């Protein structure tokens, strides 16, 4: 008898024993024989990869023996197993240097979330009702396979669409192989705070279609246009880490930091100088600074180095961007523009950053090009203290070349009936929650005959599916990740599962492989691996011959060593790959006017949704630790609020906590007012992330979702949603809303903490 069948028998045997033992229902559970050797009380640290955002920080998971209720072979029972007890940063990892952000810390609550889907489900009620019945994995996979028609012989593509969160790992590559073998179009990547505009601008300016990394530790002056780089944007832990060094890591130099934004963010709160520019005018300000630098000869043109082409034609001195003209457009005083320009030129190396709202206007692309060119003028491109691009690791298995559609065009297509979508696969993407109403996502999905989803939770999108194939959590899975930014080394993070799965779940890539093998023929040949671990092992063999953080004589040794380390990084060749030669980088001397939805007479306020420190785009709203972590600026917990300038509030006789209706041309919502000096009198701001209708017990029916009143404005170069381009009106509703604040008074900072 082998060990497995012995386990089965003893598990059955102990049921009866347990039943007799005690009257309480939880004691009726089977006790399974442990599947691991564990010493009680002794902690083991296992390397892992954080997947709470796209930054790809390396983690270590503290695993200790404990008792857990689990599902094994579809049966619930008790087992003694290794349980993740704490997540810390991996000190060796080049992105996060042993550190983590709040989302990374809250990762345990993803795995142990009571609302996780525990076994495969097949819809039993009406679509969207959330009524499901449990089915076996065999049946689930057979069901999925029966809904995956391959491309027709006439050349018509397979009517299968795959909608996923952006993936920078081999799961993404596997999905592409799978879809290509089916003859289906490439996967559609969706996240609300997408970075297409900046990637496209960086591609044109610098030859890198990716997010930038900043060498803040060696910077003497940072001017950031709207980027929440210490909070929610790009690679927050790496940016916080180098920011700390910039401020106090050097004895003789303390870097200065200026933030330009329409509404004070957590990042802006740390600025030495906080500058308000009218929403959508950031590009003018960047060129206004450039004008002063050129006319006062503060920066030699040759300082731009390889980026010189970006500022070609600037020798005439950008006559349209004199401080006076820029003041009229941006609202930033001309004297201040001169001072900022002189300051940044005097404190070399200086670097400019752009992110967030300035990119989310209809002119976001030209704002980005202007800031990129400012970096060229500052001489910061690929120079110490400047802007860099993380090289890609030498892993050919990752290359994908197909261009994919957007959720918006997918939905338009479905509503028009062409191209036909018979089957939609969804993985951790929630466009029903995170899209403007005019995209009609829910209506479009309702038309798709068969939807299957792989996520761990029922959310507004996955509740529309006919079949749910729940994934393992990231602590239970093989995880790999290629950071797009946050380091100047090429990195591939890797982790084997830190713990066994709690529930009867299966990793999404393993399900794809199972399905492909069930379909057989070309499908099976296209993805010959049995498991995702096999995919990764084969991929890592490509790396062994390259010099890096791990060296080993054999592939097997290499494979073990990268797992122990938490990945592979090229500790030689620091710095980004040379800028690609560009034919004609667009000369950003013409900023386009931003367009807003709604006439200023009827909709007098700019509406500024922003990524929440607690929930990002809403993904973390189901974690009680994040709900109860006070938003650091408002100190609000368990809710949403509308930020209003106190002057505006007194004019409209609005008091703190009053329930406000915020209405655009596309919808309205209600939320309590929060009076805050960090916002302009003609704007209102709201954090994104609450207002879920379907996202488990902690998130559902809490607060309001600002995305549901957004206009479908787009940035024309990329087609990206211009989410900062809606105007609204506000009305006091005459009753109080629910505003739970951690702090009472707002102004009591003891002046002794000011160092003069």
């Amino acid at each position, binding site marked *: 008898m082998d060990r497995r069948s012995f386990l089965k028998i003893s598990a059955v045997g102990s049921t009866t024993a347990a039943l007799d033992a005690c009257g309480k229902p939880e004691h009726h559970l089977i006790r399974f024989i442990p599947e691991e050797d564990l010493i009680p009380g002794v902690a083991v640290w296992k390397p892992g990869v954080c997947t709470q955002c796209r930054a790809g920080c390396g983690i270590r998971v503290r695993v200790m023996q404990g008792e857990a209720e689990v599902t094994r072979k579809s049966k619930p029972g008790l087992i003694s197993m290794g349980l993740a007890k704490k997540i810390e940063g991996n000190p060796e990892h080049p992105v996060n240097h042993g550190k983590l*952000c709040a989302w990374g810390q809250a990762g345990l*609550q993803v795995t142990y979330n009571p609302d996780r889907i525990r076994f495969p489900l097949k819809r039993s009620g009406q679509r969207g009702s959330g009524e499901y019945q449990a089915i076996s994995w065999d049946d689930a996979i057979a069901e999925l396979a029966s809904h995956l028609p391959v491309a027709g012989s006439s050349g018509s593509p397979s009517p299968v669409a795959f909608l996923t969160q952006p993936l920078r790992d081999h799961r993404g590559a596997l999905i592409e192989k799978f879809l290509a073998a089916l003859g289906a179009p490439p996967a559609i990547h969706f996240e609300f705070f997408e970075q297409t505009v900046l990637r496209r601008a960086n591609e044109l300016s610098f030859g890198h279609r990716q997010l930038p990394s900043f060498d803040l530790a060696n910077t003497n002056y940072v001017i950031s246009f709207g980027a929440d780089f210490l909070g929610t944007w790009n690679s927050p832990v790496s940016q916080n880490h180098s920011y700390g060094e910039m401020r106090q890591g050097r004895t003789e130099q303390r870097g200065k930091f200026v933030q330009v934004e329409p509404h004070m963010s957590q990042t802006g*709160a740390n600025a030495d100088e906080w500058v308000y520019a009218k929403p959508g005018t950031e590009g003018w300000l960047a060129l206004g600074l450039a004008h002063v630098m050129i006319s006062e000869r503060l920066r030699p043109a040759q300082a731009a180095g390889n980026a010189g082409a970006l500022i070609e034609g600037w020798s005439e001195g950008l006559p349209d961007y004199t401080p006076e003209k820029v003041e009229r457009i941006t609202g930033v005083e001309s004297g201040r523009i001169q001072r900022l320009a002189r300051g940044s030129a005097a404190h070399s190396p200086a670097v400019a950053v752009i992110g967030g709202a300035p990119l989310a206007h209809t002119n976001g692309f030209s704002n980005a090009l202007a800031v990129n060119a400012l970096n060229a003028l500052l001489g910061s491109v690929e120079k110490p203290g400047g802007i860099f691009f993380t090289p890609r690791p030498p892993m050919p298995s990752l290359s994908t070349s197909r261009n994919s559609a957007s959720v918006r065009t997918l939905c338009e297509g479905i509503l028009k009936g062409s191209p036909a979508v018979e089957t939609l696969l969804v993985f951790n993407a929630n466009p029903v929650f995170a899209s403007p109403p005019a995209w009609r996502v829910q209506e479009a999905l309702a038309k798709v005959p068969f939807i299957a989803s792989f996520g761990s939770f029922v959310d507004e999108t996955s509740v529309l599916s006919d079949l749910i194939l729940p994934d393992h959590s990231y602590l239970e899975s093989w995880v790999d990740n290629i950071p797009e930014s946050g380091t100047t080394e090429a990195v591939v993070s890797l982790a084997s599962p830190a713990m066994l799965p709690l529930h009867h779940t299966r990793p999404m890539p393993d399900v794809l492989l199972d399905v492909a093998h069930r379909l057989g023929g070309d499908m099976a040949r296209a993805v010959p691996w049995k498991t995702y671990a096999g995919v990764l092992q084969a991929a890592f063999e490509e790396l062994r011959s390259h010099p890096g953080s791990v060296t080993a004589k054999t592939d097997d040794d290499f494979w073990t060593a990268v797992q122990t380390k938490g990945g592979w990084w090229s500790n030689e060749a620091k710095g980004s790959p040379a800028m690609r030669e560009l034919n004609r980088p667009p000369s950003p001397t013409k900023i386009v006017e931003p367009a807003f939805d709604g006439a200023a007479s009827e909709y007098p306020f700019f509406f500024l949704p922003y990524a929440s420190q607690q929930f990002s785009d809403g993904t973390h709203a189901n974690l009680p630790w994040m709900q109860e*972590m*006070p938003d650091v*600026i408002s100190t609000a917990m368990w809710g949403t609020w509308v930020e209003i300038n106190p002057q505006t509030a007194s004019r409209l006789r609005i008091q703190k906590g009053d329930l406000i209706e915020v209405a655009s041309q596309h919808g309205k919502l209600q939320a309590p007012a929060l009076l805050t*000096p960090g916002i302009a009198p003609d704007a209102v701001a709201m954090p994104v992330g609450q207002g879920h209708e379907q996202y488990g017990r902690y998130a559902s029916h809490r607060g309001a979702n600002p995305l549901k009143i957004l206009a479908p404005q787009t940035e024309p170069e990329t087609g990206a949603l211009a989410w900062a381009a809606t105007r609204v009106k506000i009305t006091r509703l005459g009753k109080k809303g629910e505003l739970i604040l951690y702090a009472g008074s*707002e102004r009591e900072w003891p002046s*002794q903490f000011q160092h003069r």
Partner: protein
Amino acid sequence: MKRQWGMVIDLDRCTGCEACVVACHAENNLATVGRDGAARGRTMHWMRVERYWEGEFPEVRLRFQPVLCQQCGDAPCESVCPVYATYHNPEGLNAQVYNRCIGTRYCGNACPYNARVFNFFNPVWDKPLDLQLNPDVSVRSVGIMEKCTFCIQRIKQVEIRSQESKQPIADGEIQPACVQSCPANAMVFGDLDDPKSKVSQLARSNRATRLLREVGAQPNVIYLRSVS
């Protein structure tokens, strides 16, 4: 060997990211109290990030200040406890013996830093969130006061290991959960009695100050003032 554990928090590095706040919840089995509890002011944070506005729009700025138990040398909470549940341990920690506590909450009233929280209810973890609990830290029940311990379980673990191996504790070897997570490296923990430790060097900085110095509680948490 006599030690005085202490912490330096550099307000010029702190960015208000609150990784420390969540790290503390995860390490120390802090309960979440949910919407209703939070509305009644019953959240259980041992570590909080205070924020203060200055000025009016557009000349406005914000200050962040992480606040935890200041582990006072002359702690106002210690002298008021009728049952010696809160006491001074030999390494200068302001320690709390949970099973002595009878819930008078005198200590909470006496604390000038508002560092102490009270269990108004037995904590609940919706299953299987109970699996996140750290077995090295006891779960407190209704009627008990609690507060930041400087992650005493981590201190003890390293001390025991050092005793066993007869290796001295290296500076920086002990990191409370907040310190370990802080992405901006704003917090440093160590022995203030060791003049060579990083924490005592920073504590001698000309930016060093203490919270509510005038109260005279002799905190062992030292703040470095922010520069601008």
